Structure formats: structure tokens, C-alpha cells
């Protein structure tokens, strides 16, 4: 089986969705230090924490909004070509996508300043993200062709894809301004390993009745494919040192960028909390190992045209080669090495939470029990319910998801959170998160779309996050 075959099967086999990067279970889960990474203005009561490198902040999400592996590869006796035609060609649209993202923390440390209202955090994580929208008209051209489709425009803009891998170095500051408001910001340096994107393609291919000849074929293209780091990885693969190349490019040896996260938590009253954050407001400037490809022009042809008597002027004229040369000069396929800027997929999170029930004494070494009103760090309620909004900027425009959640604290050792998320891809996404605290050892496991585990192959979305941290509240 060829690599391309395995690639597509792997993508479909993963099962899964378009709200990739939505971490609705982790968001506003203040017992978990990694929640600071998706809201730098989250409430935090740790003295310090450190994650276990490579065993924390692990997240993986992948999805196919239009089809699942089961839809195509179920052993159901239906002819595969029939399934492909009905469920892929007939069932998917250009808004459907295949996407995946992962994060792996390499370092994540946080500590409280001498000013107890200020908390610093910093770290490094590796992130990969890719998205490709269903290229409907390209697929139709490949499966059906253009025959008997006069005047049908095949949209070249259906090719929309992007992907990247990078290390992110970050430093965040969280400050509790008063008992109502906590704000935070996180500066980021992106060190890109590789990047590819082709998201602004325009053009069409159409066959019409000809003016002179029977048919007229028009190709109008304004297409671009930009890459950085790909050639370096290809060279490294052939030289057998791909690991060191990835490491080098991820440690400032590739392309660099800057970004910022901002967030806040605002207590509307003693029991109601509003939070919001905006993440990855930034860009990467690609100038190292860049190679771009372009196809731009507008040409119409009716085949080889021979009009007498003029055509007889040069008996040795090669009409076919002239036609080929004309088309290639009008619609040239070229490459260049121009630098480019790639903006990061910016994410927006917001939540409104209502707390009630008993107040659990905080682990923090502070005077912040249930009856304290003057201290900034009040104890937490045992129950929380609310709603979250998530939006991400994608090549075909913003995508959003709405989540309802319930959070329950069981003493200071266990917190569970369950979510129900709706978006245009799923109406049955139920997630469950568990956070356990055993002394200083913190463990969490968050899994999404649990109903899909009845038949994982039929799932269009899967994600999980897990991690191990050491946390101190400064108690003796």
C-alpha cells in the first residue's frame, strides 16, 4: 500500500472534527495549571507548579466534519465506489474539512511573585496543526471529468489547506487586580519547524461550446502554494537526520514569529463569574527555507487552429507546440523564494459560570475560608454550571462552538467536569473531565465526544487531553 493511501486512510481512520483546538473541558478548569494556557487571566491559587515534561499538556484532536471512517470503510457489503460516490462526492461540501491538531508540553512552570496577587508562568510546547477543506470540484474532475458538463465551472478555489508545526516559547503574567477582576497576558515566540498554506486560491475551469471549433476550454487561475521548511525536511529525510533538523528548526533555527494571549476573569457577584480569552493573536514571518509555487493567468483554447491561407506561410510550423507554449506562457507555473507572513489561527473563548453549594476551603495558604470577605482568594463553591463560547479563525471563516458545562468539586482531591457541546458538526458531543489531587501530585484526564465510543469508527471527532503536574500551595 502506498504512502498516500495510508495517509488518507489514517486521516479517515482517526475518525472525527472541525472544532479542533476547542478545549472546552480544560477551559475555566482552574484546578488544572494548563487552564492558564487557554486563559492567562484565569483564577489561580497555586504557589507554584511544574508539569512533568512530555507527560503533561498532551492534547490530541482530529476530525472529519463530513464523513467518518465507518461511513466509508464499514464491512457492509456495499460497493466501495457506490459509497464513495454517495457519501463523499454527494454528501460532502466544500465547508467540510479534515483537520487535526496536537500539543505536547515540553516545559510548563508557574510561580507566585513576592506580590501575592501576581503569578508568573512560562514554558515551551510543541504544536502541530493542519486543516484541509474538501476539494469538491477537484474530486469531481478526478472522478467524473469534464465531459458532458458544458458551462459547468469547476472552482479552483476549492483547494484550501494549511498546516504547520512549531515550538512555542511563552511567558505569562497573571494579576488579580481586585477581588472582582483578574487579568493576564502571555507573550509567545513561535519557532516554526515547517509551514504550508494554500488558502487564497481563485479561478475556474470551464468547457463551453466553441466559437470556431466544437468546444472551448477556459482555464482561469490565481493560485498560490507557500511552503517553508519543507525542503529542509525533505533533505533531512534523505540524509537520515530528520530528528536533528526538526529539533534545530524548533529551537530558533527555522522561522520565528510573535504572538500574545490575553484573558480575564470577572466576578459579576459572589456566585457569578464571567471569563474570556483571546489566544494566538500573532504571526510567523517565514523567510528561511521558503519556496512558493504560483499558477496565474487566464487562457481559452479551442485546440489547434489552422486558418488558410495564412497558416501556410510557414510549412514547418508546429501548431501543437505553439499551442502548448502559448498556454504555458499565459498561465505560467512558477516558483519563487519570497518571504511571507502566516497569521496564526486565533482562538476566542468566553464563559459565564454560576456557582453554588458549599464552599470548599482552598488549598492555598491564605486566610480565605468561607467566612472571609476581604481576602482576594475566596474559597470555591462545590458546584458550577454555565456556558462557554469558542471561536477560531479558519481559512473559510470563523467557526464556533457552544458548550454547556457542569463542574463538581469533591473536597480538595477531586473535581469533575462534564460538557455538552454543539456546533455545526455535532449535536451529541458529551465530554467528561477528571482532575485528581494526591498531595502535590496532580493528574487530569479529559475526553470528548464520549457517546462516539460506542463505535469509535463511526465518530467524526475525537480528542483527549491528559497530564501530570506537581503543585504547591505554599502550605507547610
Amino acid at each position, binding site marked *: 500500500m502506498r504512502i498516500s493511501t495510508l495517509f488518507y486512510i489514517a486521516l479517515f481512520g482517526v475518525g472525527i472534527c472541525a472544532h479542533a483546538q476547542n478545549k472546552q473541558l480544560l477551559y475555566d478548569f482552574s484546578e488544572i495549571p494548563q487552564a492558564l494556557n487557554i486563559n492567562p487571566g484565569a483564577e489561580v491559587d497555586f504557589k507554584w507548579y511544574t508539569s512533568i515534561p512530555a507527560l503533561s499538556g498532551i492534547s490530541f484532536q482530529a476530525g472529519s466534519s463530513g464523513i467518518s471512517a465507518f461511513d466509508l470503510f464499514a*464491512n457492509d457489503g456495499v460497493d466501495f465506489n457506490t459509497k464513495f460516490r454517495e457519501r463523499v462526492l454527494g454528501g460532502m461540501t466544500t465547508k467540510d474539512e479534515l483537520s487535526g491538531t496536537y500539543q505536547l508540553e515540553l516545559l510548563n512552570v508557574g510561580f507566585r511573585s513576592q506580590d501575592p496577587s501576581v503569578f508568573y508562568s512560562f514554558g515551551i510546547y510543541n504544536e502541530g496543526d493542519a486543516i484541509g477543506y474538501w476539494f469538491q470540484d477537484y474530486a469531481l474532475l478526478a472522478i467524473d471529468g469534464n465531459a458532458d458538463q458544458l458551462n459547468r465551472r469547476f472552482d479552483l478555489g476549492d483547494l484550501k489547506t494549511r498546516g504547520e508545526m512549531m515550538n512555542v516559547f511563552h511567558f505569562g503574567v497573571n494579576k488579580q487586580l481586585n477581588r472582582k477582576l483578574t487579568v493576564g497576558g502571555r507573550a509567545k515566540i513561535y519557532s516554526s519547524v515547517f509551514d504550508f498554506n494554500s488558502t487564497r486560491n481563485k479561478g475556474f475551469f470551464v468547457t463551453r461550446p466553441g466559437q470556431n471549433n466544437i468546444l472551448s476550454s477556459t482555464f482561469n487561475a490565481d493560485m498560490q502554494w507557500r511552503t517553508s521548511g519543507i525542503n529542509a525536511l525533505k533533505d533531512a529525510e534523505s540524509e537520515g537526520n530528520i530528528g536533528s533538523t526538526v529539533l534545530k528548526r524548533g529551537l530558533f533555527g527555522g522561522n520565528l514569529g510573535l504572538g500574545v494571549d490575553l484573558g480575564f476573569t470577572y466576578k459579576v457577584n459572589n456566585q457569578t463569574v464571567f471569563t474570556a480569552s483571546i489566544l494566538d493573536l500573532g504571526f510567523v514571518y517565514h523567510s528561511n527555507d521558503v519556496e512558493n509555487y504560483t499558477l496565474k493567468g487566464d487562457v481559452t483554447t479551442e485546440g489547434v487552429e489552422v486558418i488558410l491561407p495564412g497558416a501556410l506561410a510557414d510549412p514547418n510550423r508546429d501548431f501543437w507546440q505553439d499551442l502548448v507554449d502559448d498556454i504555458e506562457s499565459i498561465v505560467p507555473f512558477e516558483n519563487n523564494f519570497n518571504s511571507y507572513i502566516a497569521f496564526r489561527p486565533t482562538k476566542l473563548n468566553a464563559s459565564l459560570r454560576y456557582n453554588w453549594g458549599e464552599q470548599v476551603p482552598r488549598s492555598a495558604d491564605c486566610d480565605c475560608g468561607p467566612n472571609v470577605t476581604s481576602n482576594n482568594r475566596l474559597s470555591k463553591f462545590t458546584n458550577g454550571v454555565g456556558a462557554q463560547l469558542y471561536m477560531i479563525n479558519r481559512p473559510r471563516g470563523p467557526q464556533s462552538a457552544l458548550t454547556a458545562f457542569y463542574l463538581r468539586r469533591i473536597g480538595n482531591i477531586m473535581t469533575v467536569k462534564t460538557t455538552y457541546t454543539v456546533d455545526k458538526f455535532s449535536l451529541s458531543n458529551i465530554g467528561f473531565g477528571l482532575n485528581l489531587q494526591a498531595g502535590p501530585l496532580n493528574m487530569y484526564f479529559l475526553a470528548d465526544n464520549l457517546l462516539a465510543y460506542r463505535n469509535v469508527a463511526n465518530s467524526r471527532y475525537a480528542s483527549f487531553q491528559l497530564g501530570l503536574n506537581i503543585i504547591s500551595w505554599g502550605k507547610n
Partner: protein
Amino acid sequence: MKRYIQRLFVAILCSVVLFSCVEDLDFTQYDELEATPSYEASILYLEAPENVINLVNNNSDVFSQNFNFDAFSEDVFADRVIEGTITYIVENTTSKELEITIEFLDESGNITDTEVFFIEEAPTANIQREIAYGDAGRSIDIIKTLSTIRVTARNLGDNTSESNLNDPMITVKSSGKFRVRLK
């Protein structure tokens, strides 16, 4: 307590694994996917006005020209083509009967296919003909080895008369529709 929590953690992970199901999938079905699209486009357009035809004696070749045409013999096409048709439309608005011969030649100059059109003078002169290649027609190898198209026009009438129609001429139009196997 720490051990209890660790066990609970493991138990949850095991539960997810044990109680999740994966229906039987057969990824080898991908090998059954067939992609055999049909593509169509114009091939050759030839136009000769009556005044050019009148320059040549009757029963002589008005025109005979070889046109290099490598589109079908390119590997990307020749290795994949399964079957297809070539459509010709010959229109004659001149005042004389004409004979149009279209020959396909391979790279060695061998004639592999010949199509002859006898076309009457205007106003009734219009021929449309579809030639099939592949299982339902002539050998597809004719298409795969096509390197040159030779078009010959012969005047079967006089060389003095002129049609009353506006801009009288003989035109040969052609297009191809071929099914190819991409997978």
C-alpha cells in the same frame, strides 16, 4: 490516598478502552476505488476559404498538411486512456464538392487510421461523424500512438465558381472525448 487515586485513574482509562467499540472496518476497500473520468476538448480546427480553393486546379489537392499532435501520445495520457470518441463536423459553404481526408500517423510516419469525408456543395453540406475507439470501436492504440494528423482537402468541382453565401469556406472541426483510468 495517592494509591487510591492512581488506581481510580487507571480504572477510568481501562473503562474507556474496554467499553469502547470499534465496528469491523475494511480499509482494503480503498483498493476497489475506481477513478475513470471522461475528459473532452477540441482537437483541431481547419478553415479554408473558397478563394484559396479556387487557386488550385480541380481534382487536385487544395491542401495537404501534417500537423504534429503529441497530446495523446504523452505518457500521462497514453498510459491511462481506455476508450473514447472523436467527433468531426465538416461544413462546406463553397460552391463545389470537396473530399476531406484525415489521417492519423504514428511516430514512424505509418498511417494508423483514415477518415474520408465527401461533402457536397452548399447549402446542404454538413457532416457530423463520431468515430469510437476502444472496445466498442477501432483500436485504442491508434490514439495512444498518434503523433501526426494529416489533413488533405481535394477539390472535386471546378475552380472558377463562387458561392453566393457570405464568406464561403470549408471548415473541419474536431473534438475528443476520452475515458481515462486515474486509479
